[in-house]
C-alpha cells in the first residue's frame, strides 16, 4: 500500500509505503546492492563494473511518478492522495568501504553538481513541489545499506520542516523587509559559533541548535537553491561540508553518524519563494558524547520542544579543535 493520508489535527500529510518493510536490510558486504557489477560477479543495482557517481530510482520508493490509487476512501475529514513524486538513491562511489568524509575532495565537489542537477530534473517533473537531497549515515540513524550513499526525495508538497522555515521567513520579511537567513549569516560571521568559514560560505552551530553538534552550512549571499550557486560558491560549499564531516570523525574518534539535508526553495517555475528561500545544508549528528545519544523523547517527540545538552558556543569551540 502506498498512499498519503492527511492529518487534520496537525495540518500535515503522512505517507504510507508499506512495501518498504521488505527492503534490503543490512546485507553483508558481499551482497551489497549498491556495489558495481564486477565482470563475472553477481549483478547488482548498478550494471556497470565501475562508476563515479550514479543515481537511480529507489526500488522501494515512498513516492513514485505513477503511484497506485489510495486503498482507502478519503473524506472531507480524512483526505487521501496518491504518493506522487520520486525517490532516488545517490551512490557516492563504487568503493563500498568509504564514506562521504573519506571521499576525495573532487568527488564531494562533484556531488554538489549532481544534487543541483537532480534538483533541476526532479523539480521539473509533474506533481513535484519540493526536492530534498539528504544522507542518513550510521546504524543508529537507521541506515540499512552500508555502502556510501544518500537519497533524494521529490515530494508532492513542501515537507513540514522546510514549510515551517518558509513561513517563519515570510513573517520575518514582512516585519523587517529582509531575509532571515541572510541576517543569521551576518550575525554568525566570525562569531563564537562559527566552525568553518570560506569566502562565500560559512558553517556554524546554530544559536538554536537542536542537536549538540548540529551545524548549518550556508552561502553568505542570498541563494535560493543549489542551481543558483556559481562555481566558486559550489567549491566553497563542497570544501566546508567535506572538512566538517572529516572533523566530525575526529570528534569522538569514530565515524560519526548524522542526518544531512539540503533545504532550498520549493520547486516550480515561479520564483515567488525566492526572496525567503535561502539555501542551507543541515547536519544533525545524534551523539551528545562518544557513548551517548540524543534521543527524541517526551519533550522533543511528544511536545516538539527540543532540549539540548551542549551549549552551541562550546560545541563550536570543540568542533574547531578537531577540524583541520
Amino acid at each position: 500500500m502506498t498512499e498519503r493520508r492527511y492529518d487534520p489535527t496537525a495540518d500535515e500529510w503522512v505517507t504510507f509505503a508499506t512495501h518498504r518493510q521488505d527492503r534490503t536490510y543490512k546485507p553483508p558486504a558481499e551482497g551489497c546492492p549498491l556495489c558495481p557489477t564486477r565482470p563475472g560477479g553477481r549483478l547488482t543495482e548498478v550494471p556497470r563494473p565501475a562508476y563515479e557517481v550514479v543515481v537511480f530510482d529507489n526500488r522501494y520508493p515512498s513516492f513514485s511518478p505513477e503511484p497506485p490509487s489510495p486503498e482507502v476512501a478519503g473524506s472531507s475529514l480524512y483526505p487521501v492522495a496518491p504518493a506522487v513524486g520520486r525517490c532516488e538513491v545517490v551512490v557516492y562511489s563504487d568503493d563500498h568501504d568509504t564514506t562521504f568524509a573519506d571521499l576525495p575532495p573532487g568527488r564531494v565537489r562533484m556531488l554538489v553538481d549532481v544534487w543541483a542537477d537532480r534538483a533541476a530534473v526532479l523539480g521539473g517533473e509533474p506533481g513535484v513541489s519540493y526536492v530534498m537531497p539528504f544522507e542518513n549515515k550510521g546504524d543508529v540513524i537507521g541506515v540499512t545499506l552500508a555502502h556510501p550513499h544518500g537519497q533524494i526525495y521529490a515530494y508532492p508538497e513542501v515537507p513540514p520542516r522546510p514549510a515551517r522555515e518558509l513561513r517563519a521567513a515570510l513573517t520575518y520579511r514582512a516585519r523587517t523587509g529582509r531575509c532571515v537567513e541572510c541576517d543569521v549569516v551576518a550575525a554568525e560571521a566570525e562569531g563564537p559559533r562559527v566552525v568553518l568559514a570560506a569566502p562565500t560560505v560559512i558553517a556554524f552551530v546554530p544559536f538554536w541548535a537542536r542537536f549538540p553538534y548540529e551545524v548549518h552550512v550556508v552561502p553568505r549571499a542570498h541563494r535560493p537553491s543549489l542551481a543558483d550557486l556559481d562555481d566558486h560558491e559550489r567549491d566553497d560549499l563542497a570544501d566546508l561540508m567535506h572538512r566538517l564531516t572529516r572533523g566530525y570523525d575526529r570528534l569522538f574518534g569514530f565515524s560519526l553518524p548524522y542526518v544531512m539535508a539540503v533545504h532550498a526553495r520549493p520547486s516550480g517555475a515561479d520564483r515567488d519563494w525566492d526572496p525567503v528561500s535561502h539555501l542551507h545544508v543541515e547536519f544533525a549528528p545524534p551523539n551528545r558524547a562518544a557513548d551517548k545519544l540524543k534521543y527524541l523523547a517526551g519533550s522533543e517527540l511528544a511536545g516538539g520542544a527540543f532540549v539540548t545538552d551542549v551549549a552551541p558556543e562550546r560545541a563550536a569551540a570543540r568542533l574547531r579543535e578537531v577540524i583541520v
Partner: protein
Amino acid sequence: MGELDVIDEAGGPGPAEPVAGTRTGLVREVGVLPDGRRITYYRLPAASGTCPHPGSELATDSRVGP
C-alpha cells in the same frame, strides 16, 4: 532481508550530455533498468577522484578562531 533481484540494463545509457550550471565538465548518461527504473551515471572528463579545480582544496583558510 529483501531479495536482491538481478538487474540488467535494458535501455542502456544514452549519450553523454553535459550537465548545465557548472564549469567542471560534468557529464551524465541516462539509462533505464529492465524494470523501468531510471538510472543516471555522472562522470568527470578528468580521472575519477581528482579535484576539478586546481586550488579548490585551498579555497580558504577555513578554520576560524573563536
